[in-house]
């Protein structure tokens, strides 16, 4: 490792090991004031949530280990906004605060119905009759057709979000899974879910559940383990893998129709096509907002990139597709972004335009911020951001079902990793050209068997095209396996040895944040 003369850089503001900021970031008077106001807004959301059901919420924090992670959300949002200025900061803060607002509302619903917190409560039982649980990687747009019910992504709140917020949150649960015999090589996502089931740390909610094979083999298997504790009437919604083929679409639609029948039976509600149509129309508009963002990112002054962008996309696609408030937020953010692009401003140092491919690392959610702040690498395009891009034809019920089937098949962690290896490979080279990129950052998620099995094809493809590509090893959400520091190390070695560059901020090249959330 080369040694650099350490000027006072961003890392000097971080506490050793915990990487807690000694003081919040100075972004210039205007941006700092804006950041402060958004921080106040966030705390307003959190206080409102806490005050709405104080006893219930304290009980929840006391009962569930994963709830502690939510107490660290302000710090998490700070990390996702590290180094951001102008429209990037504004877009990020608005998206994140909307996310906080929706998540707190859902947590209220969850805890109000949770029989662990309200054993024997008739009120909770009544609430549960209107709660439909779905596998968290199954987008809940279908729930728009049951407007009197709440469709909840079951593992999203105890598992997926905490894994992003606090890198240590999965560790205990993965240990439990492995204590019970689960091999250590399986992907941490299903392993974390299995650990939650083993510890009985899922909220006890819902009247029925839709499980699925999303996104992969590991998730199929963990479902069987989880169902033993969840103990709800359940049905599998099988999402086809060869989604590029027309031949599987009839089956895909058949599965959705069957799922609707199942939900009607267990909720006592009839599927509301008008409400569902409205939800699809709103989702289409949300998608159009996303297309605008991608258009702007193709310019020389990409305004909306980085961690909060892909995180928001995942959440929007999975949890708030068809939500009017989500659309309102999107329109507002797009106005902010357009303004900056129109003004020709770019308040950041960009040395490289990178395409980031494969699933990013949950236990280093703000990796994009580090890439930009340390090495000037701007994440102009991310694979995880590109899913569910087809608009739903709302002209008929059949076309909407077909659109929803497509929405599922091209969902988070599905759109590229399934459908054939050519989907993931060809799309990478296309995006590289489309976004005028000059390098690729390939996430090498070591326990992802589906993508790991074509590692060599990516290497050879990049070599053949003369594209600089750095492979960053990670283990999705297990920080004990590969640390953030090791991930940074992979990039550092590449940037120094292959690209022969010096960092934008030398203080960020190497620092200890093992105890950081």
């Amino acid at each position: 490792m080369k040694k650099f003369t350490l000027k006072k850089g961003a890392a000097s503001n971080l506490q050793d090991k915990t990487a807690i900021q000694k003081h919040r970031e100075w972004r210039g008077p205007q941006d700092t004031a804006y950041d402060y106001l958004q921080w106040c807004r966030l705390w307003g959301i959190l206080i409102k949530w806490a005050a709405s059901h104080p006893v219930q919420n304290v009980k929840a924090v006391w009962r569930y280990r994963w709830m502690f992670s939510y107490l660290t959300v302000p710090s998490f949002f700070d990390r996702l906004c590290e180094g951001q200025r102008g429209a990037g900061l504004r877009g990020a803060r608005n998206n994140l605060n909307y996310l906080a607002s929706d998540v707190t509302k859902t947590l209220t619903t969850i805890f109000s119905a949770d029989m662990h917190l309200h054993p024997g409560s008739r009120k909770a039982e009544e609430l549960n009759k209107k709660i439909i649980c779905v596998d968290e990687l199954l987008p809940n747009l279908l729930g728009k057709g049951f407007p009197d019910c709440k469709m909840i992504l079951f593992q999203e709140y105890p598992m997926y979000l905490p894994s992003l917020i606090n890198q240590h949150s999965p560790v205990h649960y993965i240990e439990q899974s492995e204590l019970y015999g689960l091999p250590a090589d399986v992907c941490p996502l299903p392993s974390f879910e299995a650990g939650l089931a083993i510890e009985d740390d899922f909220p006890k909610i819902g009247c029925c559940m839709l499980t699925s094979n999303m996104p992969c083999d590991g998730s199929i298997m963990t479902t069987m383990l989880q169902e033993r504790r969840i103990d709800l009437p359940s049905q599998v919604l099988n999402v086809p893998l060869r989604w590029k083929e027309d031949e599987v679409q009839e089956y895909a639609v058949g599965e959705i129709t069957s799922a609707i029948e199942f939900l009607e039976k267990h909720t006592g509600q009839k599927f509301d096509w008008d409400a569902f149509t409205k939800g699809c129309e709103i989702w289409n508009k949300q998608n159009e907002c996303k297309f605008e963002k991608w258009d702007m990112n193709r310019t020389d002054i990409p305004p909306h990139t980085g961690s909060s962008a892909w995180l928001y996309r995942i959440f929007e696609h999975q949890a708030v597709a068809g939500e009017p408030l989500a659309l309102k937020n999107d329109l507002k953010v797009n106005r902010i972004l357009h303004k900056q692009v129109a003004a020709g401003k770019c308040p950041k140092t960009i040395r490289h335009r990178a395409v980031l491919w494969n699933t990013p690392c949950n236990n280093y959610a703000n990796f994009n911020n580090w890439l930009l702040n340390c090495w000037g690498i701007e994440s102009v395009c991310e694979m995880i951001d590109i899913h569910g891009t087809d608009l739903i034809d709302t002209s008929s019920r059949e076309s909407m079902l077909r659109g929803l089937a497509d929405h599922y098949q091209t969902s988070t962690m599905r759109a590229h990793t399934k459908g054939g290896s050519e989907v993931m490979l060809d799309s990478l080279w296309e995006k590289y050209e489309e976004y005028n990129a000059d390098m690729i950052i390939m996430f090498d998620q070591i326990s992802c068997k589906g993508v790991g099995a074509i590692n060599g094809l990516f290497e050879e493809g990049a070599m053949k095209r003369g594209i600089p590509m750095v492979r960053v090893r990670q283990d999705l959400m297990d920080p004990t396996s590969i640390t953030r520091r090791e991930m940074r190390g992979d990039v550092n070695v590449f940037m120094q040895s292959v690209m022969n560059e010096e960092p934008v901020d030398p203080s960020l090249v190497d620092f200890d944040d093992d105890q950081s959330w």
Partner: protein
Amino acid sequence: MKDLKHIHYYEKLLEQTANELILKEKEAGGVAVGYTCYYVPEVLLNCGNAFSVRLRAPNTGSLDISQYYMSSFICGYTRALFERAFEGGMNFLDFYASSDTCQQMVRVVENIRELELINNPRFGWGIIDAPLKISPHGNKLYTEQVRDHLLKPLAENYGVDVSDEAIRAAVREHNEICKIFEEISEMRKEDNPRITPREFHILCLVSYSCPNAQILPYLRETLEDLRTREADADKRWRARVVVVGSELDDYDFDEIMENARCYVAADRYCFGSIPGRQQIPLTDDEPALDQVCRYYLETNQCPRFMSHEKIQQRRDLVRDLVRDYKADGIVIEQAKFCDFWGYERTLNTQVMQEEYGIPTLGIDREYVVRGSGQLATRMQAFVESLELKKIRKGGAE
């Protein structure tokens, strides 16, 4: 016991991916169709002049090339197949019938395709999607996928007869092989069985990896030999088990079991006889293709099937095998890095033990089992525990 007829010939055949019977059948105009998984209906790959070859990579040594292309956390079976293809050991293949039902296995054919590893101008491939629960629309999908991605290319590109009559003829031939196995399988229920686990596994493997037409005469003779074979007077088995699990094509596994004096009474693993070596019933009132596809879905024991009824079916089948084959316990084996069987093993080792009351051992193993001291030790310990249990039970009675 005296050596089983043709056993050494079978061992010789199993030393090569492209054995002499395959090459002989190809010379006679046969179309070699490789496959790896029960999701691909074996019997349909034997229509007309096509013949199925369930792919193995015997005598696998280092996996350096596959490690580069596929990473080291991929199951040994898929890496071994890839390595073998890279080395040129699969140039005999005319068609690779795969299924997108295991994300690791499907990548083998995708890597082969991208890297153009099969030096055969006729080489083609087909990949099917398959449901993971039984339903009418799922059966329809499966049948259409098999027809469109496997049978249609075989017919159009290789001139293979995939008509209803050809399918029925393939089923008849398949059933003849299965009948042999059903009879031999019954012998495993004997108190002092006249066939060893290793021998049975070898018979299974040759039936999967050699053309039916070529291997059938040999199997018939082996069966004749078995009918009159006498087991050794001294009963050497200390315990009987049902082995359940993932892909297992290394019969050294059975040697390890035999060295521990543990009899594999029934084999419920991929490349085993259950399922796979039971006769397929056909009626005349429905297209054979539909019946065959439905049969394969209903009898499929892959843990990928996630509906409640299939989960229950897998457990009940194992319970029934323990009963029917008079086993003392269950060994659930998992190929390292197999996601499906990693979870199934974890769960069912406990479920079968605690809910079904059957002593169960869960193990994981490499693709190549030979020389695994750890496996041998664990088997020894399990056999001893089964013996003790029998003694205690006998004492109590």
